[in-house]
């Protein structure tokens, strides 16, 4: 355990080295929220509801995404693991008594912590600036279920995206393009751009059978009491099933990949 604590601390220090990079990255996130904010303001001109959302509900959702998505989708592993497999740097880890997946999850956690600290500050700033009405459940059961679903979402995201980057074991040349497509799909289908219930009914029904809504849309839904507690509990159970599937699948792909790994770069 101590080794991962140290990795966490080193990763945290490492994030600080590219300060400007980090600040710009956060700026991009704020800009995106502002963009969504003004977009929805236009949609709501002259009407009280759209897609079954009131103006404050929708703006609340948009602000929520900033925090939830930061924790779920801040993952430097996605930018690095594929490259490390392709250029052979993975060897450094395989030689040592350290788990590569735990190593990168730890580094992701460090990045998540740093990002979440900033995103909370940004939320306060944006809230002061825009003064939207935000609804947040204060029911302890909702908060607990929402939190559990959130954590499960963080883990599902980690393992699902790892399955995609492990493609580098077989096609080291085109990891990044593949990853990029997947990330864009994930962002839309998870509800990071807009709440999923603005989509046509049949799309929503189809999405129910994918892991994506469990990343962002459902956790927020629980925090803002859009689901009954019974429904939330069922969502949590389903989320855990998806977590199990994605862990199992990613470990299988990982092991198969290692057999194919040729430790190149030399």
């Amino acid at each position, binding site marked *: 355990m101590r080794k991962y604590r140290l990795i966490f601390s*080193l990763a945290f220090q490492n994030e600080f080295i590219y300060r400007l990079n980090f600040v710009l990255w956060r700026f991009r996130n704020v800009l995106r929220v502002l963009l969504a904010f003004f977009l929805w303001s236009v949609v709501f001109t002259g009407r009280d509801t759209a897609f079954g959302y009131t103006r404050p509900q929708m703006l609340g959702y948009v602000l929520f995404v900033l925090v939830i998505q930061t924790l779920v989708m801040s993952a430097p592993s996605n930018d690095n693991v594929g490259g490390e497999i392709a250029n052979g740097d993975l060897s450094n880890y395989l030689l040592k008594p350290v788990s590569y997946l735990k190593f990168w999850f730890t580094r992701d956690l460090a990045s998540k912590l740093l990002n979440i600290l900033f995103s909370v500050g940004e939320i306060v700033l944006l809230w002061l600036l825009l003064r939207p009405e935000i609804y947040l459940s204060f029911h302890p059961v909702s908060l607990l279920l929402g939190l559990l679903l959130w954590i499960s979402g963080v883990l599902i995201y980690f393992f699902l995206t790892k399955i995609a980057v492990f493609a580098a074991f077989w096609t080291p040349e085109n990891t990044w393009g593949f990853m990029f497509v997947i990330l864009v799909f994930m962002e839309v289908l998870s509800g990071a751009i807009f709440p999923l219930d603005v989509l046509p009914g049949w799309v929503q029904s189809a999405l129910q059978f994918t892991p994506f809504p469990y990343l962002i849309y459902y956790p927020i839904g629980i925090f803002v009491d859009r689901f009954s507690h019974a429904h939330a509990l069922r969502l949590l159970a389903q989320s855990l099933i998806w977590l199990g599937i994605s862990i199992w699948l990613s470990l299988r792909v990982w092991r198969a990949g290692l057999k194919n790994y040729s430790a190149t770069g*030399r």
Partner: protein
Amino acid sequence: MPVIQVQNLKKYYKVHQKEPGLSGSIRSLFSRKYYDAKAVDGVSFDIGEGELVGFIGPNGAGKTTTLKVLSGLLYPTSGTVSVLGFTPWDRKPEFQKQFSLVMGQKNQLWWDLPAMESFILNKEIYEVPDAQFKQTLDELVELLEVKDFLKVQVRKLSLGQRMKMELIAALIHSPRILFLDEPTIGLDVVMQKKMRDFIKEYNQRFNSTIILTSHYMDDVKELCERVIIIDKGRLLFDGALAEIIKKFANHKLLTAVFSEEVNREDLEKIGQVKEFDYPRAVISVKRTVASQAAAQLLQNFPVADLNIEEPQIEDIIREVFTGKDLA
């Protein structure tokens, strides 16, 4: 009891062939031709504790692949390998704590942080006790003279300094077995020498088993009593460095200095004239007839000085690799 046992090791890679050009790229999207690249093709050897063995061979001979199998990075196609009683590719932590692989062209240090941070991380990863860590680190830092650079960002170090730091990072858990893949590559001659001295010292002081690959014959000549030569995935030679000469050099070199002008054609009758630059000539003759040839030379030519020499190891090895007749 050998610490490393390798029996009939084979490692084949599936390699896909692409026709040149864009049309070749497009065609390779639909149908790909594969062939087996035989990186290692039936190699066997044993290595005992404390040995310092040199692995030599041309580029692509299979040296690095063998080291990668021995350190558990690659699964072999067939054959058995035992290192310290472990099967390397099981990657058991108890095994990983006892060896290290250093690749001259790869780095494991965190690029943006001082090397010291990586050392501390390795201490935790290998679970090295505090006291042992401090002692090992002090020793290595002193041996390699890098005290002043421990707190400098790795990216700001020179290649030589960085290579030393890489070594420290690889040795901080006092491995019993050390695989060094081209440890002196890219270093200047002074630095190469220092690296060699260090490796020798390390081997003697800690009785660690070391396998070293290098393109520089000097590395091998100075460090290794035993060498293993592989080429095209096959073992060509395994034994003492001096034995190479006996085994492969079936010729000797006669170097003569003449007092009067001689004819090159006449010299060709004695043996193969390798160099001729009056007054000096080098003639290669079969080992078995070397003394007769020398006598002939002395009798029939105006010889001022004569030397009978073994050929240079570099020359022998080069000839072994190029598959030339060695006479």
